[in-house]
């Protein structure tokens, strides 16, 4: 077989591809959810990092993987909501707010890791998240079945998102991403929808961090995420904002990534690690324009919406909002 194709024949190659794809697939789905509601979820990088640390630290301290997963997901959801607060209520915008979370999260996690775990954060061999069923002997089945359980969760989740986007609630959420004035005109609170979407995206991003910490790396040292969140953002674009295509894009990226490291071709050490990024750039440049549009109002600030009487989020205003008439259309702009 030709030297360049050699990795594709080995089962260990596909094994690594699926293993490394798990966090990226989950992160890409998280980004997709937020994106369809109109938030460009740049905060995914920081969210993954924080939840990865939370999961690893909790598992290492308590010895319980389940606890680690729960704490990781909660930390992710909290980070997602925090980023929504930054970008919506503090008017930071999605990219700047997301980078604040990324830089702050990197500092916060390494600071806590250095203070609370001076000798490093490592997991024992029985604290890794693995498939609970025994692996079959057959090599193809082995590759497919002996993956982190969260990979299967991710695939089910992708299918669930496909269905969800077609439901009534899903349509309302998409309206906030595609045409927020229209959504507001129909009495949907764009602000609340984006908050909720960011919270859910944070939780799914938390799962991505959990799978990264508990299945892929198994320790916490420095920055284990190292740009995987940004890659997830790219995967959403490559997949044209459609859940199953996004999963495929993440798998494709992971395949290129592992290929770059495993190939033994000449000068592979030099160009191999850049391969996935170059392929992503080429794909971004060659895809049809139509597919790269994405939700039309993604990243637009809520300040551009006409003002509504109830903007503050209190229990009282919430109760009032449920009975509210559809807001007046934006005819009376000053």
């Amino acid at each position: 077989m030709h030297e360049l194709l050699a990795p594709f024949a080995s089962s260990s190659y596909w094994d690594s591809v699926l293993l490394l794809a798990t966090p990226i697939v989950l992160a890409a789905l998280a980004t997709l959810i937020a994106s369809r509601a109109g938030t460009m979820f740049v905060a995914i990088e920081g969210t993954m990092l924080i939840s990865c640390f939370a999961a690893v630290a909790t598992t290492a301290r308590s010895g319980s993987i389940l606890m680690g997963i729960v704490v990781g997901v909660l930390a992710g959801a909290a980070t997602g909501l925090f980023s929504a607060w930054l970008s919506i209520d503090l008017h930071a915008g999605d990219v700047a707010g997301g980078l604040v979370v990324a830089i702050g999260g990197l500092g916060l996690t390494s600071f806590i890791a250095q203070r609370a775990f001076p000798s490093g954060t490592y997991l024992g061999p029985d604290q890794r998240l693995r498939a609970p069923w025994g692996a079959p002997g057959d090599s193809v089945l082995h590759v497919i079945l002996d993956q982190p359980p969260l990979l299967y969760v991710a695939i089910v989740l992708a299918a669930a998102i496909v269905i969800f986007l077609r439901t009534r609630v899903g349509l309302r959420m998409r309206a906030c991403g595609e045409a927020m004035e229209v959504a507001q005109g129909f009495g949907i609170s764009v602000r609340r929808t984006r908050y909720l979407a960011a919270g859910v995206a944070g939780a799914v991003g938390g799962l991505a961090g959990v799978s990264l910490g508990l299945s892929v790396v198994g320790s916490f040292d420095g920055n284990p995420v190292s740009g995987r969140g940004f890659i997830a953002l790219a995967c959403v674009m490559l997949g044209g904002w459609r859940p199953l295509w996004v999963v495929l894009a993440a798998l494709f990226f992971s395949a290129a990534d592992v290929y770059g490291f495993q190939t033994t071709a000449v000068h592979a050490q030099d160009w191999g690690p850049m391969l996935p990024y170059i392929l992503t750039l080429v794909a971004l440049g060659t895809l049809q324009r139509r597919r790269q549009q994405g939700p039309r109002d993604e990243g637009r600030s809520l300040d551009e919406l006409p003002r509504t009487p109830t903007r503050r989020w209190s229990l009282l205003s919430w109760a009032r909002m449920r009975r509210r008439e559809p807001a007046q259309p934006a005819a009376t702009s000053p």
Partner: protein
Amino acid sequence: MPTRGARILSTFRRSLDQKAAGSLAGELVAQLGAGVLAVVSMLILLWALGYDVGIAFNDFWHGSLASATGLEQTLVQAMPVTLTAAAVWFAYRVGMFNVGADGQLQMGGFAAFMVVTAIAGGPGLVLIVIGLIAAALAGGVWALIAGWLRTSRNANEVISTIMLNFIAFQIGNTLVSGALVQRGATSPQTDSVPIATEMGNLLGPLPLVFVVAVAVTVALVMVMRGRRFGLRLRASGLNASAAVHSGIAVNRLRLLSFVLSGAVAGLAGGLVVLGMRHFLAPGWAPQWGFQGILIAFIALRAPILIPVWGLLFGLLSTSAPLLKADVGVPDGLVSVMQVLPALAIFLLHTAGRRFTHRGST
């Protein structure tokens, strides 16, 4: 008889001038308040975590500001973030988000290094100028890729510049441990640039590189304030479709300003090589681009203050090793501190907005 385009442009100008006059004083108050709030909250953070604030303050003040070597260090450290912030700010005002200042800076650094070491002989000043031009060109070309993808293929420049950052990082690693590696060195690093090309101090503890950074920032701000070209740039950023309808070639201006932004970031890389590090090793450019984005957003409405905020960030980088040695503050806490000014300004702006809107709603 003014054309329709000219009329729309003059409307733009009037509304912009009114906006600028109304908010300048408030903005300066907000900037000052954010600076004070950030510094105070840094000290409170250190105090709350149980570190000795007195010694920490001494590190900040005597270690990094009041002594000549400390001040020089701080000014040198302020240079890269000042330039990347100016680059990000400039592109953002025209409606493009340059997240790739890191990659552009690295490409600029390598270009300057390779050109200067390849020529080697000749007067230092000529070499420096050639090296810096090479750096700016390399950064501009690196930004051109993402800018072209955006303006003609409609690929989001946030994503493509991040991808280009990764690629630049890999190219850098390959060069440092491969083609440019120093003979017989134990760790992967390059030779130093020729002594003649090392940029020193202009006078006293004032480094030449910081002067260049401030000059470039001021120049970018002046271009953006201009009443002909600058107005077109601002109009493209404020409302692209209105600008297109008034006859402005928005896409071309965006591509141009993105390349300019990349050139400024690349120039920062060249200045780092010639006036700060003098040789390259893995990790020689630590996230200056991302810090630049933070600064650009802090000083978004008062860009002339970018060098001042750059100084604060430079102060933090200079103090980090001192704090670690004297008080035991880990590096992670310093990057938490970098986020505080951004949070402070976002909070103050939001508070100000609520305060001014209270009467009208």
